[in-house]
C-alpha cells in the first residue's frame, strides 16, 4: 500500500472515522494500530520486529537515562545508541555480505558465510534517526522521557511519516499526541487540499519528469551531451518535486488527525549558497545532521578552529551520503556537498571583500547569479546521486560540456519539433503538460498566496475540481515509487 493508491485513500478514511469515534484516552491506540497495519503492508511484515526492537530500546533507554546516577547515564546513553545502531546496521547488510565475499576471495577461500538479507529496509533510516534524536535530547536534559509506551511507539511509527519522514523531534511530536482531538473543519479542509496538491505534484509533475530521467539515466552511453544535460536538469526538479510531494501528502494526512508535521522544504532552489540550500532542503534531516552530528564534531574539534569546522563539515556530509546507501555515488555526492561548503568557509571573507570593492554586495544581480551558481552546483552533485554507478556518472560528467553548444546548434538549425526529439519517449503533448505542471508546482508559494486571498466559494470549488480533474486525466499512476523510499 503506497500513498498513490485507492487502497491507501480507503485506509485513511477508515482510520479517520475510527479515530474520530474513539475516546480521547485511546486515541494513541487507534493511530498506533493503523500505523502498524500500514507499515506491515507497505514494507515487509518482519520489519515490525525491527520497529518493536527500536521502540523498546528507545523507551527503556530514555527512562533509564533520566532516572540513573549522572555518573553512569553516559554509559546507558551509549548502550541505547548501540541498540538503535544495530537496527540501522540492517540496511548495510548487503555491504557486509560483499565485504566478506571480497575478503574470502582475497584469501583464496571459497567460504560462504550466510548473512541474512532483508528484501527491504524501508522506513528504518527514518525511525532510527528519530530514536537517536530522542535519546540524545533526554540525555542532554532537553526533553523529559516519555513514560507512556504507546505514545512513544506512535511517535516513531506514525504512519504518514514512517516511510519517508519528516524526521520528527520528540519535543515537537510527543506533546501533540497527548492533546484531545476535536474536529476542525478548516484543518480538515486544508489537510485534504495539501494531500491533493502533493498528489498533483507527484503524479502530474514529478513522474512526468521521471519518464525522461529513467530512459536517459537507464542507458547514459546511448545519448549525447544535450540529452544528458536535459535529463540532468529534469532530475534536479524531479527529485525535489517527488520528495516535496510526499511531504505535502504526509503533512496533509497528519493534519486530518490534528497533528502538524515539520515542513521539510522551503524553496531549496532559491538558495544563494550551498549552505543555504541545506537550510531549505530536507529540513528535518539537515537539522538532525546539524544538531546530532555536525555540532558535536565541530565542538570536539574546536581546538583546530576553522580546520576543525571544515573537518566536521566533510565528515557530516560523507556520513550523510552513506545514510542514503553504501554506494560510491552517494559517497561522492556527500563529498561534493562537503567540499562546496568547505571551499565557501575558507573563501567567504575574500569574496565578501571583493563584492564590496566592486559594488556588487547586496545587489539583486548578485543574488540572481548566486542562485544560478548554487542550483548548478547542486544539480551537478545530483548526477552522482542518480546515476546507476560511478562509471555512468563519470560518462554524464564527461559529456555535459558539449551539451549547451549542441543544444543551441540544434535549436538554430532545426524546428521546435525536432529539438524535442532530443528527449526519448517524450511527445510534444506530454512535454507541454509536464512543463506547465512543473512551473505550477515550483510557483506554489505564489499560488498559495493568491488562493488565500480568494474568498469566492464557486472559484475555490472550481479550483479543487480542476486539481482533481488534472490528477485523474493527466496523472501517471504507473506505480513509480517515491525516490526517497529507497533510503
Amino acid at each position, binding site marked *: 500500500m503506497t500513498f498513490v493508491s485507492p487502497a491507501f485513500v480507503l485506509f485513511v478514511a477508515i482510520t479517520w472515522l475510527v479515530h474520530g469515534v474513539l475516546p480521547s484516552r485511546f486515541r494513541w491506540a487507534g493511530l498506533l494500530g493503523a500505523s502498524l497495519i500500514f507499515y506491515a503492508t507497505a514494507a515487509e511484515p518482519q520489519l515490525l520486529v525491527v520497529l518493536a526492537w527500536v521502540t523498546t530500546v528507545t523507551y527503556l533507554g530514555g527512562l533509564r537515562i533520566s532516572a540513573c546516577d549522572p555518573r553512569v547515564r553516559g554509559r546507558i546513553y551509549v548502550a541505547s545508541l548501540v541498540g538503535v545502531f544495530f537496527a540501522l546496521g540492517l540496511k548495510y547488510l548487503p555491504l557486509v555480505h560483499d565485504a566478506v565475499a571480497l575478503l574470502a576471495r582475497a584469501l583464496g577461500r571459497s567460504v560462504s558465510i550466510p548473512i541474512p538479507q532483508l528484501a527491504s529496509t524501508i522506513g528504518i533510516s527514518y525511525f532510527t534517526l528519530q530514536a537517536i534524536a530522542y535519546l540524545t535530547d533526554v540525555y542532554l536534559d532537553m526533553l523529559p522521557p516519555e513514560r507512556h509506551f504507546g505514545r512513544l511507539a506512535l511517535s516513531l511509527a506514525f504512519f504518514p511519516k514512517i516511510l519517508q519522514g519528516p524526521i520528527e523531534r520528540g519535543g515537537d511530536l510527543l506533546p501533540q499526541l497527548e492533546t484531545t482531538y476535536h474536529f476542525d473543519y478548516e484543518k480538515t479542509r486544508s489537510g485534504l487540499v495539501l494531500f491533493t496538491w502533493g498528489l498533483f505534484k507527484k503524479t502530474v509533475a514529478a513522474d512526468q519528469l521521471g519518464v525522461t530521467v529513467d530512459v536517459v539515466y537507464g542507458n547514459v552511453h546511448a545519448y549525447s551531451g544535450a540529452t544528458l544535460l536535459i535529463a540532468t536538469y529534469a532530475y534536479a526538479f524531479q527529485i525535489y518535486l517527488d520528495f516535496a510531494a510526499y511531504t505535502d501528502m504526509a503533512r496533509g494526512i497528519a493534519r486530518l488527525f490534528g497533528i502538524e508535521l515539520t515542513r521539510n522544504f522551503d524553496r531549496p532552489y532559491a538558495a544563494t549558497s550551498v*549552505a543555504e540550500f541545506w537550510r531549505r532542503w530536507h529540513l528535518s534531516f539537515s537539522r538532525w545532521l*546539524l544538531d546530532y552530528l555536525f*555540532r*558535536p564534531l*565541530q*565542538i570536539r574539534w*574546536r581546538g583546530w*578552529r576553522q580546520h*576543525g569546522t571544515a573537518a566536521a563539515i566533510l565528515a557530516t556530509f560523507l556520513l550523510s551520503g552513506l545514510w542514503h546507501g553504501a554506494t560510491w555515488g552517494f559517497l561522492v555526492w556527500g563529498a561534493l556537498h562537503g567540499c562546496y561548503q568547505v571551499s565557501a*568557509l575558507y573563501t567567504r571573507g575574500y569574496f565578501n571583500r571583493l563584492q564590496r570593492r566592486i559594488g556588487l554586495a547586496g545587489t539583486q544581480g548578485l543574488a540572481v547569479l548566486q542562485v544560478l551558481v548554487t542550483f548548478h552546483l547542486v544539480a551537478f552533485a545530483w548526477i552522482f546521486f542518480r546515476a546507476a554507478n560511478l562509471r555512468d556518472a563519470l560518462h554524464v560528467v564527461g559529456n555535459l560540456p558539449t551539451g549547451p553548444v549542441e543544444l543551441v546548434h540544434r535549436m538554430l538549425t532545426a524546428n521546435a519539433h525536432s529539438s524535442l526529439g532530443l528527449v526519448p519517449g517524450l511527445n510534444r503533448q506530454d512535454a507541454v503538460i509536464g512543463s506547465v505542471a512543473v512551473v505550477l508546482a515550483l510557483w506554489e508559494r505564489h499560488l498559495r498566496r493568491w488562493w488565500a486571498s480568494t474568498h469566492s466559494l464557486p472559484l475555490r470549488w472550481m479550483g479543487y475540481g480542476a486539481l482533481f480533474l488534472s490528477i485523474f486525466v493527466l496523472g501517471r499512476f504507473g506505480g513509480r515509487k517515491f525516490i526517497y523510499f529507497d533510503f
Partner: protein
Amino acid sequence: MNIAQRLTETFREVFNDPTLVVTPETTAKDVDGWDSFSHVNLIVAVELSFGIKFSQRELLTFRKVGDLLRSIQRNLDQA
C-alpha cells in the same frame, strides 16, 4: 568589568561589531553573522577570554546567551 560586560566585549570582537549589545535572551538569530560556522569561533574566544573550558555536554545545550552566562559563572565558581 562583570561577566556580562566581558562577554559583550568578546561578542563584539568575534562578530566585528563595536555596537553589538547582547542580553540573556539574545539568540543566534539576533546577531548578524552568528551561524553554525562562526559559533565555534565564539566558543573558543569565550573560553580564552575567561580562562575556562566548557564540557561537550554544556556546549550542546546552549540555546541563548543566558545559557552561556550561566555556564561561564559555573565554570568560574568551580575554578
